[in-house]
Structure formats: structure tokens, C-alpha cells
């Protein structure tokens, strides 16, 4: 059994958006939840915005590190990739000199987990925004 959107061939784009898939990805990448807010899904967007910004801030507060892109260290590279999935907060935090990483802090690894987790969740948010713009999801 197929969903109504799939049975009619190409799904209809979100009507009120005026936003293409690329724009949705860009908005969600820069600010978590911004694409959903632009699509008129205010509750969903607000929850994503608050939770992911909180996770990012908590990660910094716990002493987590903003990892650089380092190809010689694959895990550091992947951590950096995940953290860059929350672009604007990542940029602002780096500009403010935050995220040096307090390795001796008890919560250092939790900090990294929160920072990386926020980025990974925002990747899912970006995919969800594309699905909603293209009509795969209501």
C-alpha cells in the first residue's frame, strides 16, 4: 500500500514555503529548526531550535571541544564534521573563543557527546526539512 503522496507520482511541494530543498537544507544547517519555522511548522521548529541550541551550549558548558578538520585523525575529522552540522552556533562559538576543550574536566566527554549529538541530530533535521519541502512528509 502506498501513501497518497507517492501514489500520485511526484509529491506536491509544501505550498506555503516558497523554499526549495537546497534552501531548506541551508536554513536548517545554519540555524537548527529555521527551515521548519519557515515551512510554518512553528511548534516542531521551536522545539528543534531550543533543544539543539541547548545541547550545543551545554556541550560547551561541559568543557567539550570544537574539533578541527584533521584528516590524519579520522575520529577527530568525523567529530568536526558532526559539529559543523550546526553551522552558525559553531561559527559563533569559535569566534567567541569557546570550545577549546577542558580535557581535565570530569564532563569533557559528555561535552563532546552533546556537541556531536547536536550536530548529528541536526543532520536528521535537515533531511526531514527536505522531505517536507518535497512533499514526502506532510
Amino acid at each position: 500500500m502506498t501513501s497518497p503522496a507517492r501514489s500520485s507520482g511526484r509529491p506536491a511541494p509544501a505550498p506555503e514555503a516558497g523554499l526549495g530543498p537546497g534552501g531548506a537544507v541551508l536554513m536548517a544547517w545554519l540555524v537548527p529548526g529555521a527551515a521548519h519555522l519557515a515551512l510554518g511548522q512553528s511548534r516542531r521548529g521551536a522545539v528543534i531550535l531550543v533543544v539543539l541550541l541547548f545541547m550545543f551550549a551545554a556541550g560547551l558548558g561541559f568543557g567539550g571541544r570544537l574539533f578541527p578538520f584533521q584528516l590524519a585523525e579520522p575520529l577527530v575529522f568525523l567529530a568536526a564534521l558532526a559539529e559543523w552540522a550546526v553551522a552558525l552556533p559553531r561559527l559563533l562559538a569559535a569566534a567567541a573563543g569557546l570550545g577549546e576543550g577542558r580535557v581535565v574536566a570530569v564532563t569533557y566527554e559528555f561535552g563532546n557527546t552533546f556537541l556531536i549529538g547536536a550536530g548529528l541530530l541536526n543532520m536528521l533535521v535537515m533531511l526531514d526539512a527536505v522531505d517536507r519541502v518535497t512533499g514526502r512528509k506532510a
Partner: protein
Amino acid sequence: MTSHLGAMLLFAVCVAAVFGVLLRDELGAQVRLAGRIFGALAAGAYLLGWMMFLAF
């Protein structure tokens, strides 16, 4: 906050909230799914913690 359990629960709440709003449309269903995910994460971590404590 330096409690590992507290930090883990906080992380579980955040992850559950995001999955809840992404995967369900109605508020009640979102809350129910988030609760289930939170419970699974918290119980799983607690169980795993005990298993590691007993095994190592």
C-alpha cells in the same frame, strides 16, 4: 552538573524530544514517542552500566 547519570538523562531527554517532534505529527503522539525513547535510552544505559560494572 558533574553527575554522569544526570548528564546522560539530560542527553536522553534532548534526543527523545527531537525524535518525538520529527517522527510524529500530533502533540500527544510526539510526547508518547519521546517518553518511550527516553525510557529506552535511560533503561538501556542503566542496564548496560550495571552489566559493565558486574563484568569488569
